[in-house]
């Protein structure tokens, strides 16, 4: 049997963590390729709808990363995001999401090493949890026409 490879939807802020991902890339730091990166202007742009949508469409994990507090390109975006994430993570885990499926980090654009590190950690933690069962909706993709 093939080893389970998780799909992890990753929301990165354009100014910091996306830059860090870029730096990790040009520096040739190795990390597994389980991530699907979505670039956002700011971690404050992340809506809980997006996170639920990711799980509903079959993600095994979600990782959200932005600038360190105080370094937001929009000055305060990640401070607001932090409160939002606290309540979101708590409520998701309250309703039965395994701890570890949703992950958060602050990574500046100079921290290519940290990016690769956190990516490896997130991927290995989600891998250890196995496929997300029951979270994805079974969509009716096509219908047979008689």
């Amino acid at each position, binding site marked *: 049997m093939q080893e389970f490879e998780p799909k992890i939807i990753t929301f990165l802020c354009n100014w910091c963590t996306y830059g860090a991902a870029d730096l990790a890339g040009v520096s040739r730091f190795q990390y597994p390729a389980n991530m699907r990166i979505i670039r956002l202007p700011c971690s404050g742009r992340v809506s809980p709808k997006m996170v*639920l949508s990711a799980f509903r469409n079959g993600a095994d994990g979600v990782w959200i990363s932005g600038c360190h507090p105080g370094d937001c390109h929009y000055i305060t975006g990640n*401070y607001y995001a932090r409160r939002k994430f606290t309540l979101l993570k708590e409520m*998701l885990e309250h309703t039965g999401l395994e701890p570890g499926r949703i992950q958060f980090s602050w990574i500046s654009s100079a921290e290519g090493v940290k990016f690769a590190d956190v990516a490896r950690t997130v991927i290995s933690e989600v891998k250890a949890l196995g496929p997300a069962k029951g979270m994805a*909706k*079974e969509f009716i993709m096509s219908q047979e026409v008689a």
Partner: protein
Amino acid sequence: MADVALKIREIARELLDSEKVDVVIGFKKGTLPVMSEPTIIRKASDTKDLIWDATCRLNLCNYLTGRKDRIGIIAKGCDARNIVGHIVENKIKRDQLVIIGVPCTGMADKKVLSDLAGGEVTAYSEAGDQITVSGPAGEKTVSKADVLQSNCCTCIKRNPVIFDEMAGEPVEELSPDNRFADVEAIASMDAAAKWGYFEELLSGCTRCYACKNACPLCYCPTCFVDESRPQWVGKGTDPIDIRTYHFLRAYHCAGRCTDCGACEAACPMDIKMRAFTRKSIKDCVDNYGWETGMKEGVRPPLDTFKTDDPEAFIR
């Protein structure tokens, strides 16, 4: 409670007669014995319809959103907290309102009453602290304290926080031993058990949206459930869609919910969906020391921040 109802009628009549308000929002007797019905009264002669008893479960603040006229509104403790929220969120202006405060000793749970009556309740009456219901199981008289809604048992503000008139003597506030015992009970389960708990909880949901319609916080011009590009949540009764709907509805109320219980009171399937909102209420207390609607002019927790907010979970 009869004297409270008389006092409410008297104040309402006075307000309408003196043209201090254009309408009075209150409760009248519903078409079913255990139900009351929100009503908007324009004529002083109609104030005789106003009632007050343990069936006035709904939250009248729901009917304030965006109104332009001058309004008299009857408010129990939790409704008054929602009115504060509405003022903070610019949904109504304080000077449009004459708030008729009612000190509240809790509302009777409709499910508990119907269980007591052994099915559909055919007659309901109140005398002091005693409630009498009739149904297939005959006539039963109980103390109101034994049939309270669960949110009324953990109420932190029975007397209205803001009011212009008062329709009764202030009542003693509750001091529950452990307000969040229900949330902690869920917290002690493992992830699979939590998942199963909520699966079971939501199994009866028909997506009628009574909970969001009864909620004073749900006033977006287009609700996320109606958005189709992108479609965040499907329309049917797929378990994942039901869960997504309830989760997002509750999350939209994070830091704004006063635990008034209107959602559960309105639910035709008796789903206890406060299991979702209770968690965010507890988190707001634990992380930000926040109680909704206790003070005018304070921004809600998700609309503000502190530079040293807790962030232990962020790498």
